[in-house]
């Protein structure tokens, strides 16, 4: 088995003493694409932050577990270590809000800045244009001259991707890259990701709440709920035969899973709130298959057949493959 590029092992994070992530375990092989899925509050954005060393900014810190990237233990890094990793090894694409770029600098100036600092030796002007071409932006010359507020959301998102690529990273982490964009723009962005992957074999960690996006792009999917990972596995298999009730519920809740005229399915209850996690399985209060053991004992993420894992005590009617623990 090849060593994975990225391994998160039992990560636990607290903010101001409040646990917000616990037992987060997942891995990403080189050249792979992992889709990290979950609703708001599931901890997926926090995992991204932990991955980039941005926890101190929001007052968080790692209290358990570790993150390993290409031989380096990220959770051990100090400021200097992080400055080598960020941009050059791992590129981060934040959600492209209006505020994601410095409003008083042109796009070109910001690109050139990144190229200068992260890609010494490259010809700055040419490389800036090249980066914009990589993300399929029409009229790169024009965009370079523009200010961020003059661009549309889709274009800003592409600029964010271009900026993340400036340091030629091995792994690209994208936090909700298609949220707040409409469907056609989403498609275009995903095509950009597909391009990058095909061209350079870049690994991709895509964080989103949109299962459709994951189905399109990711080889592997990891589902998060209540600050922990509840299921991991090959995208196709997981989506056909989910091994966790929450995944099943998410899949069932898609409008496309219902025929015309049928009621849409929702998941009853409210998402788990950090600091108020119930004892036992965090999904138990909303799970249609919850048993007594679910309420007392938190299920660990256990491997199943074929590189899949799930954190569930099991429910009647599960398929063979999805329930046999290795």
């Amino acid at each position, binding site marked *: 088995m090849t060593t994975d590029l990225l391994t998160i*092992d*039992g990560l636990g994070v607290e*903010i*101001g003493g409040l646990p917000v992530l616990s037992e987060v375990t997942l891995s990403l092989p080189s050249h792979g694409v992992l889709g990290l899925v979950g609703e708001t509050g599931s901890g997926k954005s926090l995992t991204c932050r932990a991955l980039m*060393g941005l*926890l*101190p*900014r*929001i*007052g968080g*810190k*790692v*209290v*358990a*577990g*570790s993150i390993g990237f290409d031989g380096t*233990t990220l*959770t*051990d*890094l*100090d*400021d200097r270590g992080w400055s080598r990793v960020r941009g050059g090894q791992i590129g981060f694409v934040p959600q492209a809000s209006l505020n994601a770029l410095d409003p008083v600098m042109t796009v070109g100036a910001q690109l050139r800045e990144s190229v200068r600092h992260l890609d010494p030796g490259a010809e700055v002007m040419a490389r800036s244009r090249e980066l914009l071409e990589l993300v399929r932006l029409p009229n790169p010359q024009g965009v370079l001259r523009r200010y961020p507020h003059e661009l549309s959301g889709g274009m800003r998102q592409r600029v964010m991707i271009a900026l993340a690529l400036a340091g030629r990273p091995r792994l690209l982490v994208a936090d909700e890259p298609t949220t707040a964009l409409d469907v056609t723009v989403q498609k275009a962005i995903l095509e950009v990701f597909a391009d990058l992957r095909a061209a350079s074999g870049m690994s991709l960690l895509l964080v989103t709440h949109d299962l459709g996006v994951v189905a399109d792009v990711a080889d592997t999917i990891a589902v998060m709920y209540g600050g922990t990972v509840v299921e991991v596995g090959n995208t196709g298999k997981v989506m056909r035969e989910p091994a966790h009730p929450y995944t099943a519920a998410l899949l069932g809740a898609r409008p496309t899973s219902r025929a015309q005229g049928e009621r849409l399915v929702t998941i009853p209850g409210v998402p788990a709130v950090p600091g108020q996690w119930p004892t036992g399985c965090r999904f138990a209060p909303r799970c249609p298959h919850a048993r007594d053991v679910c309420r007392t004992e938190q299920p660990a993420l256990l491997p199943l057949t074929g590189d899949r894992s799930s954190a569930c005590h099991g429910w009647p009617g599960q398929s063979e493959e999805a329930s046999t623990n290795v």
Partner: protein
Amino acid sequence: MLTQTPTPAPRKHWLRLPHWRFAARRPRGALALGLALLALIVLATIFVPMISPYTATEIAGKPLMPPSLAHLFGTDTAGRDVFVRTWVGGRNDLLMVVLVVVASSAIGTLVGVVASMSSQLTDSILMRLTDALISFPGMIIVMAIALVFSGVGEVGPFPRGALPAVIAIVAINWASYTRLVRGEALSLRSRDFITAATLLGYSKTRIIIRHLLPNLATTVVAYMVVDAIVAVVTIAGMPFIGAGIQPPAPEWGSLMLAGSTVLYSAWWVTVMPGLVVTVYGIALSLIADSLLAEVDGGAR
């Protein structure tokens, strides 16, 4: 395997990003201190003249005596006790400040709310008017207006010169409130709950009174506190230019002015009332800061 992100080494910390979003609120102690100081001053203005062995106008001792147990703030050029004069003057100042702030905020808020809820044209006209008023530097226009009303003498319990001074300040001051309130009201107006109220068919008046005003209240009150500081500075500055409360009625500013001729030898005549003004300002600053922290901190 338990590893922890190392906390940054202290020597690097001046570049460290502040934990802004989860930072602690401003300490409550500031608000308490501010209120305490303010209460102290107000109580002193009420009680000191009552219990002091001297009055503000009598000759209480030898002129220009330094602070002592008998005369806590010393005596002035005529031999009057500066301590009691400071607190009697304080009554005048505080009274005027209250009048100025209440009148300005009432007028200003009213105009501001009306402007925000009226047509573009009315709004434009009102705003240009307020802009024009604000353009005059405070002191200058106050002097001019004081001149305009200089014919007016004593009115009721107010010492001579008090009422023209109040009118002069309020005449300009309300415009600042209007600016503030209009801006807030406009941004509130586009918020969903106002749209909902309008769609539900509530009358304009009802929307204003029951929905707009309460939300504006915190901002306006915070402003009023800041205004109370500025008002005192203006009021106390007026004697320097010959306006404001006329002597012999004591007032912080005129007390300070009177002491300026003997500044070198008898500094206490000026500095003591000045310290009281400063402490008053500090008290109000602390209160204003706490209020403003609520407004802005809450927005996050």
